[in-house]
């Protein structure tokens, strides 16, 4: 029963974040300033998710070369700038991370 309540609650809050603005989108006109801000949403959100995962271990920063996430992330940035191919970037970045993790 608790599982059912939990999943129902998660379904509701997830859908009620994703859908309502689409629902009224034919009728409501959004202000230009909001539309301008939207351009910055994806890079801001994705960076905010990724940076702590890469740099924080437990409760503190881990900036050394022994941190496989940091080395993998740097490699991913390099490959992305070099090849501009998302699939290749993901596979190669993952490869560098796993290799580094196996070595240390």
């Amino acid at each position, binding site marked *: 029963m*608790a599982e059912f309540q*939990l*999943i129902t*609650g*998660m*379904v*509701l*809050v*997830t*859908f009620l*974040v*994703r*859908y*309502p*603005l*689409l*629902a009224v*989108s*034919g009728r409501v006109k*959004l202000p*230009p*300033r*909001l*539309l*301008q*801000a*939207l*351009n*910055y*949403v*994806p*890079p*801001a*959100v*994705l*960076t*905010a*998710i*990724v*940076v*702590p*995962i*890469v740099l*924080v271990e437990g409760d503190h*920063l881990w900036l050394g070369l022994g941190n*496989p*996430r940091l080395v*993998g*992330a740097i490699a*991913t*940035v390099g490959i*992305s700038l070099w090849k*501009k191919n*998302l699939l290749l*970037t*993901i596979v190669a*970045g*993952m490869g560098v*991370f*796993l290799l580094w993790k196996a070595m240390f």
Partner: protein
Amino acid sequence: MSACVFAGSSQFIALGLLGAGSPLGIIVLTTWVVNLRHLLYSVGLVPHLKTQNQIWKVALGFWLTDETFMVAIQRYRQPDASPYKHWFHLGSAIAMYSSWQLSTLLGLTLGQTLPNAAAWGLDFAMVATFIGMTLPYLTNRPMVATVVVSGAMALLARSLPHQLGLMVAAIAGIITGVLVENRTEPGGQTHG
């Protein structure tokens, strides 16, 4: 949970909280906070979906994720005037959903038999994906400023409870981008 909720990062966090014995209300609230960014995504899709009927909006709303948003918004922004871009969006959403269900099933069936699967570091795939999606944005100064501030704030605010640091950092990054853009280009034009 994967079939009905379909929100990877919040499912991950919900299981962590469940394992720690957090009350249901806290878990649902955290799910809401983690998924708030989809409110911002849906705003981004509004100009492209406002002419579609409610069935399309419900379907694409339910299947809205980071990855589908990224793929779909790039297709919508291409200059050609194809009227079928929402079909491309739907295709992407269904592909994401199918592979999410398949992977969940694999994890459920094989997870018990594989030793230590959680320690393999497969979650780094999400990091690599997000990095690969972010870098193409960095073509001008406001975007670079956004990413720098967002990343720094995410580190500074990381100890806030319930993933609130994520929202704080994202909002700080967005405000920075808008401010830098308005300063360098008076009038603040919107880039597509």
